[in-house]
C-alpha cells in the first residue's frame, strides 16, 4: 500500500501542472478515488474536454472494476449491503490485487479488509496533497522514477496473483490482447475486452485439460 504515496504524488504534481486547484484535485482523490481515471481526467480537463466526455471516459475506464468486484464477490457472503457498499467505494486496482492475495491464504476478516482499504485511500489522498503542494518546487517527477510506481506495483501484484500455469497463460494472452486492442484504437475498452477474453481462454483450457 506504500506504493500509493508515490503514485498519488505523481498525480498531484500532474494536477498542479495542469492548472487544477488543489481542492478539485483532492476532491477527486477523496470522492472518485480511481487512480488511472484521475490521471486521464486531469489531462482531459487541461485539454478543455467537456464535463460529459470526462464522465463517460471515467465510466468506461472504471468498468473493469465490475469484473474485479464480481471476482471478489464469493468472499462477501455474510456482509450486509451497506458493508459491501463501504468496501466497494474503496475498491481500486491495487486494493483488488492485495485483497485477491490475502483471500488466497484465508479470509482475513472485516477489520483487516477495511483497514487495507482505509490505509490505501489515506496514502492516496496524502500523496495527492503532497504532489499538489510540492508540484511547484520540482519541474517533473521523472528524475525520481515516480512515474514508474504504478507499473512496478502492477508487476508485483501480477506475479503474486499467478499461482498455476493456466493463470500464467491467461496473463500472457490478456496482456497481448490488451496491447493489440489498444493499438487498434479501442481506446479505454482494451482492458475490459482483453480481460473477458483472457479469463474465458483460461476457463476453456481448464475444461479441456480436465476432461483428458
Amino acid at each position, binding site marked *: 500500500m506504500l506504493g500509493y504515496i*508515490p503514485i498519488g504524488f505523481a498525480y498531484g504534481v500532474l494536477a498542479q501542472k495542469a492548472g487544477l486547484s488543489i481542492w478539485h484535485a483532492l476532491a477527486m482523490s477523496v470522492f472518485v478515488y480511481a487512480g488511472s481515471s484521475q490521471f486521464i481526467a486531469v489531462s482531459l480537463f487541461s485539454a478543455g474536454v467537456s464535463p460529459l466526455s470526462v464522465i463517460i471516459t471515467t465510466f468506461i475506464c472504471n468498468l473493469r*472494476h465490475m469484473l474485479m468486484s464480481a471476482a471478489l464477490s464469493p468472499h462477501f457472503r455474510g456482509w450486509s449491503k451497506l458493508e459491501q457498499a463501504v468496501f466497494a467505494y474503496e475498491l481500486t486496482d491495487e486494493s483488488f490485487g492485495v485483497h485477491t492475495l490475502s483471500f488466497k491464504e484465508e479470509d482475513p476478516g472485516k477489520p483487516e479488509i477495511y483497514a487495507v482499504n482505509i490505509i490505501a485511500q489515506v496514502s492516496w489522498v496524502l500523496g495527492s496533497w503532497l504532489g499538489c503542494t510540492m508540484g511547484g518546487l520540482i519541474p517533473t517527477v521523472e528524475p525520481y*522514477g515516480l512515474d514508474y510506481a504504478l507499473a512496478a506495483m502492477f508487476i*508485483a501484484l501480477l506475479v503474486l496473483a499467478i499461482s498455476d500455469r493456466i493463470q500464467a497463460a491467461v496473463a500472457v494472452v*490478456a496482456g497481448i490482447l490488451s496491447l493489440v486492442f489498444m493499438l487498434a484504437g479501442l481506446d479505454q475498452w482494451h482492458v475490459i475486452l482483453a480481460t473477458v477474453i483472457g479469463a474465458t481462454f483460461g476457463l476453456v483450457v481448464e*475444461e479441456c485439460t480436465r476432461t483428458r
Partner: protein
Amino acid sequence: MYLTIAGMMLVTFFPRVIPLWFLASRSLPPRVASWLRYISPAVLSAMLLPSIIAPDGAVYLHWENLYLMAAVPTLLVAWKTRSLVLPVLVGMGLVALARLVWGI
C-alpha cells in the same frame, strides 16, 4: 467542476458495488466461479502490458524503453521476495538511476 467530480464519483462507485450486491449472496455455478478466478491475472496483465511495451501509445521494443527494461528486475524481485513494496522501490530506483546515468 464539482458537478463533474460528482458525476465521476457515481460512474465509478456503481460498477464497483453492483456485482458485489448481486453476486455475493448467491452460490455461483462452478464454471462461473472458475472463470472469475482468472479475472485477477487477466485484468492486472491487461493493464500492465500496454503501459510497459507501448508507454507512449506505440510499440517501443528498445533498450531505451526504461519501463520495459526495468520490468525484468522488478518481476524477478517480486517473484523471489513475494513482497509488494520491495519490487516497487527497486523498479522506481532503477528507472531513476538509468535516467541519471545515461540521461535517457
